[in-house]
């Protein structure tokens, strides 16, 4: 029997992702693993993340989680990215444990993004 595999939050984020797309004038990172593809991009200024975007090839949970991540970090400090853990998002979105592997790809992407943003501002 199939209990609903998607929470209301997942459906909403999947159906109407406000951060879908690549920010061409921002910093982008990409992770390919576990059969999924995750791309995150961000525009940062003064240590703050002013805009985020994502592109994902993967299941609805991963798409929803990527959208949730973008929404969450918008307006926040860029250095928070590096401490990001997926556990909380998995709980809020009620993502089934068997999807942990894929969601960890997102975690890796978020941290890479943090490093990339820090690298860029160190350069500047």
């Amino acid at each position, binding site marked *: 029997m*199939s209990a609903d595999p998607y929470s209301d939050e997942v459906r909403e984020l999947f159906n109407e*992702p406000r951060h*879908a797309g690549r920010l061409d004038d921002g910093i982008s990172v990409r992770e390919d693993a576990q*059969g999924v*593809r995750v791309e995150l991009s961000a525009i940062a200024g003064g240590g703050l993340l002013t805009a985020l975007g994502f592109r*994902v*090839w*993967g299941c*609805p949970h991963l798409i929803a989680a990527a959208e949730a991540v973008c929404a969450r970090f918008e307006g926040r400090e860029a250095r928070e990215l590096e401490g990001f853990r997926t556990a909380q998002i998995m709980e809020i979105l009620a993502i089934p444990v068997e999807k942990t592997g894929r969601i960890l790809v997102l975690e890796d992407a978020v941290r890479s993004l943090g490093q990339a943003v820090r690298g860029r501002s160190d350069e500047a």
Partner: protein
Amino acid sequence: MKDVVYLDYAATTPVDPRVAELLRTLNDPDGNFANPSAVHIAGRRAAAIVESATAEIARMLNCDPRGLVYTSGATESDNLAIAGAARFRAHRGRHLITMPTEHKAVVDTFKALEREGFDVTWLTPESNGLLDITRLEDAIRDDTQLVSIMHVNNETGMIQDIARIGAICRDRDALFHVDAAQSAGKLPIDLANLPVDLLSLTAHKMYGPKGIGALYIADRPGCHVEPLLFGGGQQRRIRPGTLPVPLIAAFGLAASLARAQMAEDERHVAALGDRLWRGIRGVDGVTLNGDEQHRWPGILNVSIHDVEGESLMLALEPVCVATGSACNSQNQEPSYVLRALGRDDLLAQSAIRFSFGRMTTVEDIATAVEAYRAGVKRLRRLAPERAA
């Protein structure tokens, strides 16, 4: 279900309104609810209802009504046919033949028999899903007791040539079982002229209720099954338990309606299938699972390159379709049937099975086409390019 577009008829169909009406009458406390085993008047009336329903099912299959045994559905029929016949004939030999593309009710029963010490040959299909008859001829041995090949495949709609397969089995003195869950009531099945020994049916795939099925057992020497259940003497001890008269009567009516409008149903379904395929075949990267010939038109199974299956499925809502076999859809493993047709995991995972029937409208199909095209487009836009 007015707020969804239901295109999952291969999983289960709606109950025909005429059948629903009969069920209503029989479930009424003033209707005949008695136990057909009882000798009193009410029991005998119930027995008469069962008898005439059985005659209807027999008419649909052109078989002797005495060959029909009621079960709870095709899963039980498959188990009874396969395990029952294998065990009955075990003293003659222990070799059995089937295909990995059968329904789980068949596959898992054969696996259980392997654990019991039977020797099973698994014949893989050609890339279109069909059995190459010469491979069967080569596989049959002197100790082969049973061959089980389904009629219409529940995932792809591919139709096996049961007349030719049966002829070979008969020639080599092996019993032939056919899982006809998807074809009964939809394609003509003439058991008086087909070399089929055992045939599984279920009412809920042919506009009847869920919870009732039947197994046809030919009246031929050596064609018997050992029962799986023991109890009261019902159904010549082959399958005991109080007969569910309302379900049986409904099954009988569903059979009689199916027989009466088979050609009409088929025309309707073929037209819808055509429209659906024309609507989506042009989408970049779409590929049909199975082939365009030898196919029941009420099932259309398509994979698509570079679109993730689970997301596509959700993007299609409120169009209700299946990814793999419905019975299997909790588990998001790539379909073993599509893998057997040579699809890689990614393509298998992107498969969508559209299935439809008597109550499906042209508008339902148009909605599905639109949703498929839009879903693919949106998900492709959402995805980063493939790594170089």
